[in-house]
């Protein structure tokens, strides 16, 4: 066990900020490469004409998931030291819906709006301004909603733990779902392209 490096003290807080910047560059680079600097490209996912969002997102999830699984299995990466956001069922249900609504209305998500703004998209910049305004609003109203905010807490829990399945089985199921989804998504894109051609 020698990873995560930071948590085993290989470097300190100051170096971690440099690491953050470098990792951010990689993140932003591939988001832009995938076409996520364009709201039209992103929202096409929700009109079934271009399923790139699903393909990129699930390829990334599956890649990292398999990497984490195997690095953990050979005993290199300590999974218990990877930060997991605690689960709050009801707020995350509602928050997820709001994220989806904001996505299709605004055309971006927080990460992709940074890429859009960096490549000169004015709507990306407006979206960023909106995020700051929304956060301020939430912050000011926080005392009123804190009860809802902390509802149904489950703590740090993973799918394998929650459903009492082996980690490997869940990895396999996600892989199956993703690969099946990719084939399905490509088929849907073809149908939609044909429909458009007819029209």
């Amino acid at each position, binding site marked *: 066990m020698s990873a995560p490096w930071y948590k085993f003290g290989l470097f300190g807080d100051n170096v971690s900020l440099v690491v953050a910047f470098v990792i951010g560059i990689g993140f932003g680079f591939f988001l832009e490469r995938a076409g996520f600097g364009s709201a039209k490209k992103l929202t096409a996912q929700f009109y079934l004409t271009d399923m790139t969002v699903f393909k990129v997102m699930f390829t990334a999830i599956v890649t990292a998931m398999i990497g984490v699984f195997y690095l953990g299995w050979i*005993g290199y990466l300590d999974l218990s030291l990877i930060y997991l956001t605690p689960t709050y069922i009801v707020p995350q249900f509602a928050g997820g819906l709001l994220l989806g609504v904001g996505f299709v209305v605004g055309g971006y998500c927080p990460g992709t709006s940074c890429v859009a703004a960096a490549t000169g998209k004015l709507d990306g910049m407006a979206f960023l301004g909106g995020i700051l305004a929304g956060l301020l609003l939430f912050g000011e109203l926080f005392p009123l909603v804190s009860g809802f905010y902390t509802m149904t807490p489950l703590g740090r829990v993973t799918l394998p733990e929650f459903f009492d399945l082996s980690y490997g089985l869940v990895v396999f199921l996600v892989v199956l779902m993703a690969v099946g989804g990719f084939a399905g998504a490509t088929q849907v894109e073809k149908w939609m392209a044909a429909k458009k051609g007819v029209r």
Partner: protein
Amino acid sequence: MKGLFTKLTVNRALGLATLVLGFLALFLGDPGKGARATIDPSELALMVQREVDHVSPEQLADWIIAGRSDYRLVDLRREAEFAEYHIPTAENIPLTGLDRSSLGRNETVLLYSEGGIHSAQAWFLLKARQHRSVYMLSGGLDGWKERVLFPRVTADSSAASLEKLKHVSAFFGGSLRTGSGEAAAGPTLIMPKPQISAPPVAPAGGTTTKKKKEGC
């Protein structure tokens, strides 16, 4: 057309590799649950011999008084014994519960039990689980009583060290023992209540150095 063909092969290759890795995962079960624990006996033996893995009661007392919180002090005894008395800032993880404990592999852990045997067993268990820095309190709780709570004062102790002993032992609710061995061995030593001797700083356990939040 050639471009399309290349793309399909790349995509198919990626898809196939993913399926194979996912299928293998099905049979590998759970990562990092300790089933693959390995130990290096000669390295461990060397550490035991050199006693680098020991922390003296006096040192621990200094740490607690100074409010150090970059380690976790673990009491391995049974719950009832823990409730009766424990070293301030200690948390109770009975030996049988060590498997399911929340101790991180990157945390500094200081173990103690009544004497030295249980903490040595727990030390080996954690080392085998590849915990990085695991230490034992030398002499265990017996050593703590003997050297911190009720230290024996001998005639040749200097005034300064006497003052320090008195101060430390009073901090933890104990007292100095003077006179001959027979008298001190009597049942007159009253263990302080755990609540009284709680220090003003450093709550038990927790990695207080990691104060930075990690989520979004």
